């Protein structure tokens, strides 16, 4: 084998190793493949550590935070908007396991809506109309959950 062929083979070999260890590879068979993109974006939110006494309190907090979020977006208060997204993510982290245990039927839809919201609401540039719509959806969702928990 000629030297350039060896070099090319080594290069190709390293290129293949690099691809398969990338968290973004498709067919990687681990949690960091296709879903890794979304998880990466969620983690970019950096949930704030929140003190949440119990599920009911957490839901009540989220009802309030979603209202506050809308106000922050409409006031063009970027700093507050980001802070609230981090708080919402933080409360969600604290309650989601309990919510799944208690409201197994509803949980998948809520989780999906929360993921979509955090996805849209994070980052520097946001689609204002979209995030307010998603925020409204979450506001209704947590209102209904709060009511269901009381019954």
């Amino acid at each position, binding site marked *: 084998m000629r030297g350039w062929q060896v070099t090319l083979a080594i290069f190709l070999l390293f290129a293949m190793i690099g691809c398969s260890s990338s968290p973004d590879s498709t067919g990687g068979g681990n949690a960091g493949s296709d879903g890794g993109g979304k998880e990466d974006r969620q983690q970019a939110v950096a949930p704030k550590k929140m003190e949440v006494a119990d599920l009911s309190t957490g839901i009540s907090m989220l009802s309030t935070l979603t*209202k506050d979020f809308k106000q922050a977006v*409409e006031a063009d208060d970027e700093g507050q908007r980001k802070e609230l997204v981090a708080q919402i993510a933080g409360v969600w982290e604290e309650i989601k396991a309990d919510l799944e245990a208690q409201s197994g039927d509803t949980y998948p839809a809520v989780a999906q809506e929360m993921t979509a919201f955090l996805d849209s609401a994070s980052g520097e540039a946001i689609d*204002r109309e979209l995030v307010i719509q998603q925020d*409204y959806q979450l*506001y*209704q969702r947590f209102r209904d959950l709060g009511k*269901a928990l009381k019954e």
Partner: protein
Amino acid sequence: MKLINKTRILALLLTFALTISVIPGFAVAASKDIKVQLDGKQIAFDTKPQISNGSTLVPYRALAEKLKATVKYDSKTNKVSVVKGSKTVVLTIGSTNATINGKAVKLDAAPITKNGSTLVPLRFLGESLGVWVSWKASTATVSLETQKTIEHAMGKTTLKKVPERVVVLFNGMVDATTLLGVKPVGAVESYVEQPWYNFLKGKMSGVKNLGDETQPSLEAIVALKPDVIIGSKMRHEKIYSQLQAIAPTVMTEDIYSWKKTLEIGGIVYNKEAQASQYIADWDKRVADFKSQIGSKAAKTKVSVIRFNPDGSARAYMAGFATNIFKELGFDFPKAQKDAKSDIVTVKTLEQTSLLDGDYIFDFTTDWTGDGGVYKHQKEWTDSDLWKNLNAVKNKKYYKVNVVSWNMSGGPQAAKMMLDDLYFYFDLD
């Protein structure tokens, strides 16, 4: 020393009196002033009615005789049985456990024996036997009615007992019925989220779907053998006589005046107190909203709209959402008021300005399922004419929940819409 002893004794007596007043069982108080009326006539009891844990207890034999029920007392088991028609109620003296047709229920107060009479909870017995029971605090009167004549939008209907098999023919009444804790045997389906709106689903298990609100299945209604049918003149005027032939029928004027809907439901189902309380709570929340929003409401023109599958749009000057805005003191766009119509139809894009206001609330939904209405909505809202609307320029165009803002039309939906308005107007 004597003074100290007297003081001590007095203190001890006072302490004793206070103590026994909070011990259960001692909370029975004779009330000389409680009156009991049956169909407008006062019932005389040898032993006066008592109050225990908030329940009025009356001698059961005298009450049962007045209600034309048969009674039995088993001294071995201390059980009292009262039978009227198909209903058998069994109570046990000293126990809060009772049964209605064999099904266990819990009482707020246990039957007691006093002066040789057995006293039982009045409301429980009355309601178990299908009698309307209401309390009038101002005259300390419990009123029992063995039948109820209800004036409604299409006349008068008499019910011979509190209905158990209820058929409901419009969405707002389905909302009110479940709120009042009644499960209908049949109901018309929802327009979306079928067969029942998501917020009602949990309470509608086993309910027969009677089809569309505008065209309920009469055959299915007949098969249910209802005690009462509740419909609306707005939808069911033409079939009223057919419904009356099936079962006593009560009709509201329209489908969206949710307070009237709830009041009618309260009367029919013997839940007037609950209905009144809901409305009272609503009024408090409205007062709170108005207090927070202040003068802004009267200066804010709200436009309530939807896009239609036929390529038009409409603004509402009447209806469920509009009525709530009116109650909260909001104003409406001049152009819509000038149209002098409950529904202001906007046929072309060039007329888009008719949809404008300080706020636009849009509850467009795709109830046909083909997505066409959303294409039409996008076409208009992508246009320069739309983008030039005041509400749009000021970023006060919102897409809202069609179920709670329009399609349900009942008391629970009203509360959800009011919650939404706290959200949209940034109130606590």
